[in-house]
C-alpha cells in the first residue's frame, strides 16, 4: 500500500503538477493580457485627456507642425516674392501658377537622390551634422511663449539665457561639417562661419540682456507682459536695430551669408552635402530664421501682446504673434534682393567697430532709464 502511495505521489509531483501549474500560469497571462487590451483605449483616452496641452504644443504649435509648415511656406514665399524683384515669376508649373507643389516635388527629389560621401571624409560627423543642424534652432523655438500659459517649455527665469545658450551651439555645426567634408572650399566656409558668429554674438547678447533689465526678469513671459503698454522697440531703438541686424546675421542670410558665398566657395560649408543632407541644411537656415525672429518679436515687438480678437485671449495672442511674424518675414526676405554681400573683414569691422559699442550704449541708456524710474 505504501509503495503504491509513493508511486502516486512521485507521478503527481513530476508530471501532473507541473502541467497544472504551467496551465494556471498560461491562463493567468492570457487573462492579464486581454484585460490590459480592453483597458488600453481607456488608458489612451485618459492620457490624451490629461496631457492634451503638451501634446498639442509638441505636435502643432510651436512644435513639429508649425516649424515644418513655416519652413515650407517661407521657402515658397521667398521664391515667389523675391522672384518678382528679379523680374522672374518663381515656381510656375507645379501647382497651377502658384507653384506650391514645387516644394513637395523638390523635397521628394532631394529624398531620392544619392548621398555622396567624399573620399577620406569623417563619415560619422559628415552624416550626423546635417541632422543636428535644424534640430538645434528648433529646440530654441520651444522656449518662446505664445500666450501666458502656452509655452512648450516654461523654464521660468532661465528662458532667455537658455535660448542664447542653445543658439550658441548653432555655429559649431557648420564648423564641424566643413572640416568633416575633406574639401578646401568647405574648410574656408568653416573659418568664415567662426568669424561671422564671433562678430555677431556679443552685441546680440548685450542687447538681449538690456531688454531683460528693462523688464526686470529673464522670463520671456514676463518680458512680454512688461511690454503691455509700450513695445521695447521704442525706448531701445538702438538695440532694436542691432538685434534686427543680428537676426539676419545669425540665420546666415544675405547680406551676411558669407560662409556660403557661392561666387567664391561653391557653397561654402554646404558644398559636399547632397540629397536629403542638403535638404536639412536648407531647412536649417529657415528654422534658425524662425527661432531668431520669434525671439526678436518677443523681446522688442511686444511678443504676443495685442488687442483681443473676438474675446478669445489664447487665440488672439497666437494670432498677434503670427501676424507680427508675417510682417517681419517679407521685410527680411526683401533685404536679400536689395543688398550685395559684405566681405569678411567688413563684417568683422561692422561687428566690433560699430555694433558692440552701440550695444553697450544701448545698455547704458536702459540702465539710465531704469535708475530714473521711467520703467519700474
Amino acid at each position, binding site marked *: 500500500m505504501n509503495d503504491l502511495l509513493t508511486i502516486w505521489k512521485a507521478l503527481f509531483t513530476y508530471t501532473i503538477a507541473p502541467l497544472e501549474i504551467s496551465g494556471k500560469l498560461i491562463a493567468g497571462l492570457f487573462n492579464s493580457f486581454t484585460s490590459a487590451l480592453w483597458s488600453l483605449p481607456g488608458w489612451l483616452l485618459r492620457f490624451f485627456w490629461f496631457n492634451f496641452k503638451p501634446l498639442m504644443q509638441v505636435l502643432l504649435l510651436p512644435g513639429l507642425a508649425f516649424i515644418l509648415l513655416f519652413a515650407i511656406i517661407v521657402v515658397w514665399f521667398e521664391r515667389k516674392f523675391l522672384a518678382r524683384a528679379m523680374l522672374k515669376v518663381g515656381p510656375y508649373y507645379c501647382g497651377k501658377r502658384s507653384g506650391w507643389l514645387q516644394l513637395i516635388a523638390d523635397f521628394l527629389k532631394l529624398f531620392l537622390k544619392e548621398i555622396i560621401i567624399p573620399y577620406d571624409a569623417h563619415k560619422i560627423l559628415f552624416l550626423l551634422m546635417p541632422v543636428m543642424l535644424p534640430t538645434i534652432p528648433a529646440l530654441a523655438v520651444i522656449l518662446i511663449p505664445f500666450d501666458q500659459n502656452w509655452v512648450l517649455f516654461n523654464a521660468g527665469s532661465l528662458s532667455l539665457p537658455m535660448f542664447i545658450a542653445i543658439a550658441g551651439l548653432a555655429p559649431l555645426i557648420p564648423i564641424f561639417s566643413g572640416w568633416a567634408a575633406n574639401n578646401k572650399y568647405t574648410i574656408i566656409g568653416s573659418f568664415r562661419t567662426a568669424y561671422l558668429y564671433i562678430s555677431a554674438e556679443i552685441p546680440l547678447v548685450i542687447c538681449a540682456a538690456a531688454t531683460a533689465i528693462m523688464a526686470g526678469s529673464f522670463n520671456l513671459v514676463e518680458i512680454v507682459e512688461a511690454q503691455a503698454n509700450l513695445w521695447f522697440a521704442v525706448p531701445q531703438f538702438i538695440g532694436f536695430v542691432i538685434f534686427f541686424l543680428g537676426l539676419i546675421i545669425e540665420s546666415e542670410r544675405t547680406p551676411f551669408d558669407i560662409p556660403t558665398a557661392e561666387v567664391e566657395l*561653391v557653397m561654402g560649408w554646404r558644398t559636399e552635402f547632397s540629397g536629403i543632407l542638403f535638404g536639412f541644411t536648407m531647412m536649417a537656415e529657415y528654422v534658425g530664421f524662425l527661432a531668431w525672429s520669434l525671439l526678436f518679436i518677443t523681446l522688442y515687438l511686444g511678443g504676443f501682446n495685442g488687442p483681443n480678437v473676438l474675446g478669445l485671449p489664447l487665440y488672439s495672442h497666437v494670432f498677434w504673434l503670427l501676424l507680427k511674424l508675417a510682417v517681419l518675414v517679407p521685410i527680411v526676405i526683401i533685404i536679400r534682393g536689395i*543688398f*550685395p554681400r559684405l566681405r569678411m573683414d567688413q563684417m568683422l569691422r561692422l561687428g566690433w567697430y560699430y555694433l558692440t559699442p552701440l550695444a553697450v550704449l544701448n545698455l547704458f541708456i536702459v540702465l539710465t532709464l531704469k535708475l530714473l524710474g521711467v520703467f519700474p
Partner: protein
Amino acid sequence: MSEPKIEPDLMRVSWGPQHPMSGQTRILLDIDGEIVHRLTADLGFTHRGIEKILENRTFLQGIIPIERMVMVDTANIGLGYVLAIEEALGVEPPERADWIRSMICEFYRINSHLYAFGLQVEATAYFPAVFLWTTIDREIILDLQEQLTGARWSYNFFMPGGVHADIPEGFQDKVLEGVEYLRGRFKQYWGAMVENAIFEMRNEGVAVLRKEDAIRLGATGPVLRGSGVDMDVRKDDPYAAYGDLDFKVVTEAEGDAMARLKVRFHEIEQSLDIIEQVANEIPGGPVRTRIPLFLRIKPTEVLSRVETARGELGIHMFTDGGMNPYRVQINSPSLRNMYVFERLAELDEILLADVPVVINSIDPWYLDSDR
C-alpha cells in the same frame, strides 16, 4: 601647364573649371586665410585653334570662325578681320557702310558692357537680380540687330567692301526709341547699384592699378582707361566712321574696381550718343563696293586694330596670293588683361572674397584669351 610651387604656409585653392562663377578658366589662388598671395591663371581650356582654322578658310569664309571669339561682342572682332582684308586688298568701303558699321559696333559695345556690368555686380552676390535685368536690356539690342541683319549675335554682316544690306524702313525710329529706353534704364542702374552702399564698400579701393603699372604691364581697354590713361583706338587711329563722329574717351583716375565699372558705364552712355548721331545723320549712298567672288590677294602683310569692348584687338595678317590667308595672328585684349590680373596680387592686397569682383572688373572673355 607647369604650376609654380606652393609656398610652405599657403593653401592652394583651385578656383577652377568646376565652379559656379569661374567661367571657362582655372585660377590657382595661393591663400593664407583670406589674403591671396599669388594668382596663377591656367588658361587654355577653350583653345580652339582659330588662327589655324583661318588658314584653312577663304577670306570670306574666315569671317565666321573669327566672330565666335567673343559672343557678346562679335561686331568689333569681325570688323577687325574685315578691315585687315580691305587693307590688303586696297578697297575702301563707301561712307554709308562705314556709318552702319560704327552703329553696329557701338550696339555691341553696349551689349558687352551690360553683360560685364551684370557679372561684376553678380560677383558681389547681388545675384541674380542685376544680371537678369541687364540680360533683359540686352534683348532690346538683340531685337534691333535681328531686324537689321537677320540674326541675333553672329550675323556675318560685315564683308570686305561694305556691309551686306541696307538699313530697312522705319529702323531709325526704332533705334531712337531703343536709345531712349536704355537711357532711362541706366539712370535706374546708377541709382540702385552703383550708389548702393554695400556695393561701394565691395568695389572701392579694391585692386587698385596705378597708371604706371597699367602702362608697364600692358593693360588695355577699360582696365587701362580706369587707371587714368587716355588711350582708345577709335580716337588714336580712327577706323570706320569714328573720325566723323563726336564722342569722348572716358577715363577715371582711381584705378580700382569701381573706376573700371564707371568707365564701362560712361562708355555705354557715349555709345548711345554715337548711335543717336548715326541714326540722325547717316549719309546716303551705296553700302557695298564690288569685290571679286573668288578672292585672291597678292602677298602682303597688314596690321589692323580695332577697339573691342574689352580692349584693343590687333589682327596681323599675311597673305601669299592664294585664296586663304597664309597666317593670321590675333592679339587678343583678354589675354593681355589676364596678365595684368595675375600681377595684381603683388601690386595690391586682394582678399579671397575680392577675387570674383576683381576678375569681373577686368572682364576677360576666356574664349577670347584662348582663341
